[in-house]
């Protein structure tokens, strides 16, 4: 059977682009294995969410698979020792993050034995779903498509939704990246086992596997592996960004997940192929998340995919790919559409690292200077979300954040399709990131201020109430004195009732006031409060970025930067003021 014949209807989304694929280079060789590096540097934060809590100290001997740090708080993921050895450092080191700032890392010096801890496979078919999902917290598994959202949260039943369809994202639409392609070609059976687990955990009836039609070998392998199952392989046309979860869902089902809903709220869940393989290894082999497939490609002598232990220093990987060519200037993590410049060659491979591209000026020409927007709307034609990028650009540039919000800035997935087709070479996505982080900062400041105001209102209400109560007591006492001779049982209860209802009224009034104040307080944070999962994730990321480095600035005009700096200062000041106010009220309380 021809793998590329499509029997299913495909529901196209607006726009999309066809960047040169450049995938053939890294699919010539099978997935390679690396020798153990001399040291492994494991950033604690390799996922979206909280920093996990360290469970080891320097000098500890650890076994392969041993827990080094456990998930802390709801959204967090554990970190494990990728091999046996000694913890030789716990310190800040450069991590593969656009901010270029160091973050806490655990360094392991391997002992070369690669000795496993005791592994405990689980008989998942006969186990309770809840228990299984709960145990996932210890697995360290996060979305390996690049989103790195902790998987145990995506599988957690939230009570209000019933997932009926599981969609496996195997589109891999970004140029250069082939890790999922190779994984499907070589380990389709393992993927299918992983899908069965995910399906069981979600209770999903239907499984759809979306693969772009530029991966015929992978599609054939998946079709063969799923032949005896009810899973359905759906070939989608090659069109960037079909691998974006919401776009893929639309492609295979025709469903537009509403912007303010999670996919689970409409009965859908999306997993990447690599993630389900991690699930299968965890449950069936008892192995936590220790490695991933990474495409090492671009300006190296022998582009190839490797199975890489987390924490492996990048040079180790580059060497395995035949070394970088002499004109290599730096490395990009991710694809050329959404990736970022690595701050240093000495960064470790993390859970997010699906692809590393060695870059050279010939491979990626420096962009020509940006020209004014000529309103040609090529960007709008390319936008998969059907936004108006030229308007968003205009609003972001003029700091008109409310308008940007109105024009659905937060629905932008930062796919870069707009910049890709812009004849004026405008770094549109940078402007959107800037505007998003500004809006979030402003909203946060507002929220904090609201909270402070609310507390203050309650405090005033309480003072008022206490005054009232004192007065009432006074009056009562006076009354009691007066009526001492003829005590009336009734009067006391009456007074008590009056007191109670006065108290009630005061509280209600205070609440009303607080509500009104909140409503009056500028930009409505509701916009973010009801944002979808994607956006929230994005916000978390942006937030992390902000905290790390302030924000990235579109590098085109100077006074813009000054403005941004000023805005950050403003936001900071507002935050500080709000915090101070809060402290104040708390003290007085």
């Amino acid at each position, binding site marked *: 059977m021809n793998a590329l014949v499509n029997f299913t209807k495909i529901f196209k*989304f*607006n726009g999309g*682009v066809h*960047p*040169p694929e450049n995938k053939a280079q890294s699919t010539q060789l099978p997935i390679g294995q690396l020798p153990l590096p001399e040291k492994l540097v494991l950033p604690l934060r390799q996922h979206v969410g909280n920093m996990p809590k360290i469970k080891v100290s320097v000098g500890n001997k650890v076994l392969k698979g041993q827990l080094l740090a456990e998930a802390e708080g709801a959204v967090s993921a554990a970190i494990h020792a990728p091999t046996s050895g000694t913890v030789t450092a716990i310190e800040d080191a450069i991590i593969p993050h*656009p901010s*270029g700032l160091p973050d806490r890392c655990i360094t392991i010096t391997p002992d070369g034995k690669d000795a496993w801890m005791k592994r405990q496979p689980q008989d998942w078919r006969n186990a309770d779903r809840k228990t299984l999902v709960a145990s996932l917290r210890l697995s360290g598994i996060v979305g390996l498509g690049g989103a790195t959202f902790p998987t145990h949260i995506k599988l957690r039943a939230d009570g209000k939704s019933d997932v009926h369809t599981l969609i496996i994202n195997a589109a891999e639409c970004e*140029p250069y990246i082939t890790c999922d392609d190779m994984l499907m070609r070589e380990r389709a059976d393992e993927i299918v086992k992983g899908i069965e687990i995910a399906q069981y955990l979600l209770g999903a009836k239907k499984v759809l596997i979306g693969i772009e039609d530029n991966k015929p070998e992978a599609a054939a392998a998946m079709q063969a592996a799923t032949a005896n199952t009810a899973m359905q392989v759906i070939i989608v046309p090659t069109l960037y960004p079909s691998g974006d979860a*919401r776009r893929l869902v*639309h492609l295979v089902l025709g469903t*537009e*997940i*509403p*912007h303010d809903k999670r996919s689970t709220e409409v009965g859908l869940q999306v997993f990447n192929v690599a993630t389900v393989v991690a699930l299968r290894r965890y449950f069936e082999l008892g192995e936590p998340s220790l490695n991933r497939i990474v495409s090492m490609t671009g300006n190296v002598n022998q582009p190839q995919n490797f199975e890489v232990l987390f924490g492996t220093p990048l040079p180790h990987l580059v060497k395995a790919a035949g070394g970088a060519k002499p004109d290599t200037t730096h490395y990009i993590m*991710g694809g*050329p*559409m*959404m*990736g*970022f*410049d690595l701050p240093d060659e000495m960064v470790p491979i993390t859970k997010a690292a699906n692809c590393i591209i060695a*870059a050279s000026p010939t491979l*990626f020409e420096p*962009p*020509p*200077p940006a*020209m*004014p*927007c*000529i*309103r*040609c*709307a*090529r960007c*709008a*034609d390319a936008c*998969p*979300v*059907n936004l*108006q990028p*030229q*308007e968003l650009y205009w609003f972001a540039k003029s700091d008109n954040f409310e308008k940007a919000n109105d*024009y*659905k800035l937060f*629905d932008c997935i930062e796919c*870069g399709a707009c*910049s*890709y*087709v*812009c*004849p*004026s*070479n405008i*770094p549109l*996505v*940078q402007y959107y*990131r800037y505007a998003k982080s500004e809006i979030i900062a402003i909203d946060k400041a507002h929220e904090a201020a609201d909270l402070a105001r609310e507390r203050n209102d309650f405090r005033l209400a309480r003072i008022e109430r206490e005054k009232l109560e004192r007065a009432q007591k006074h009056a009562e006492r006076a009354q009691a004195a007066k009526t001492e001779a003829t005590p009336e049982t009734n009067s006391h209860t009456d007074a008590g009732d009056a007191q109670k209802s006065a108290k009630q009224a005061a509280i209600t009034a205070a609440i009303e006031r607080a509500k009104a104040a909140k409503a009056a307080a500028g930009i409505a944070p509701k916009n973010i409060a009801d944002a*979808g999962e994607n956006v929230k994730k994005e916000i978390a990321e942006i937030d992390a970025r902000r905290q790390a480095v302030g924000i*990235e600035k579109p*590098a085109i005009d100077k006074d813009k930067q000054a403005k941004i700096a000023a805005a950050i200062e403003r936001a900071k000041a507002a935050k500080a003021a709000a915090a101070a106010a809060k402290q104040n009220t708390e003290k007085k309380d």
Partner: protein
Amino acid sequence: MNRSPYISDAPSVGTMMLKVLLALVPGIIAYVWVFGGGILVTLTLATTTALLAEAIMLKLRKRPIQPFLSDFSAVITAWLLALAIPPLAPWWLIVVGTLFAIVVAKQLYGGLGYNPFNPAMIGYAVLLISFPAIMTKWPAALELAQTKLGFVDQLQFIFGGLLPQDVKLDAVTSATPLDYLKTQLTLHHDLASIKQAPLFGTLGGKGGEYVTIAYLLGGLYLWQQKIISWHLPTAFLASLALVSGVFWLVNPAHFASPLFHLFSGASMLCAFFIITDPVSGPTTPKGKLWFATGVALITYLVRVYGGYPDGVAFAVIFMNICVPLIDAGTQPRVFGHKK
């Protein structure tokens, strides 16, 4: 640093504009063939003026000159204006018009990308209002003129206002078909007899219609090259045909046919080259349809009832004013949102 995407696939602004110029070439060739080489002089004058004015203004505004001159947008403005005004006008007319278009309508508003009005149409409107007599004196198509002016004669006329001895101005100019039609209709002549005049060809004006067809071909090239989308030209031509068709069906003795309207005056130039100016036009697909329909309706009304023979310039300027409104009102539905 996150500067993704690292790759791009876009023609530069300069390339896009060059293609627009290229698309005008067939029209210019037809023009020379029908009306003589004088237009080449006007085009050169306009181009030079536009580039000089742009360079000086950029210098004054302290903007880099080279990247903005090489985007060719000034040249397009110059050419459109040159093609819109009578080719046998004195040299200063095109210079004044171009200066106004570039300096006031474009650079003073902030240069490329910031001008709310189509600069060429502003230049045209200013000339039409200030010098109505010259602006309505079109040379007759060579095959119709009583006296045919050679290229040198045309040059002499443009620069010195000199005609060869014994040649009267009336002998080399004539009313445009739209103009003629309008004056004759006000004299209560009936359309069929008016159309007997040698001025009229099969589709539009004799000679002029070839130029119009050449514009159409150039426009199709732009569409094929994806420089323009189908929305604007299609909506413009369809609405113009529709409105003129209705009037024509009601009273064919008084109103010209849709074909005549499509192939006369600046219709084709407008459909493919003027309203397709991205900067001063709407950006949403629906907005483009509304915009073009508006231009077509106003153009028709001015042609039939207005004080000027052709209404394209005023129609475009008026619709330019409406662009922010149109854009705001025609935002497409965003993925995952209800309308």
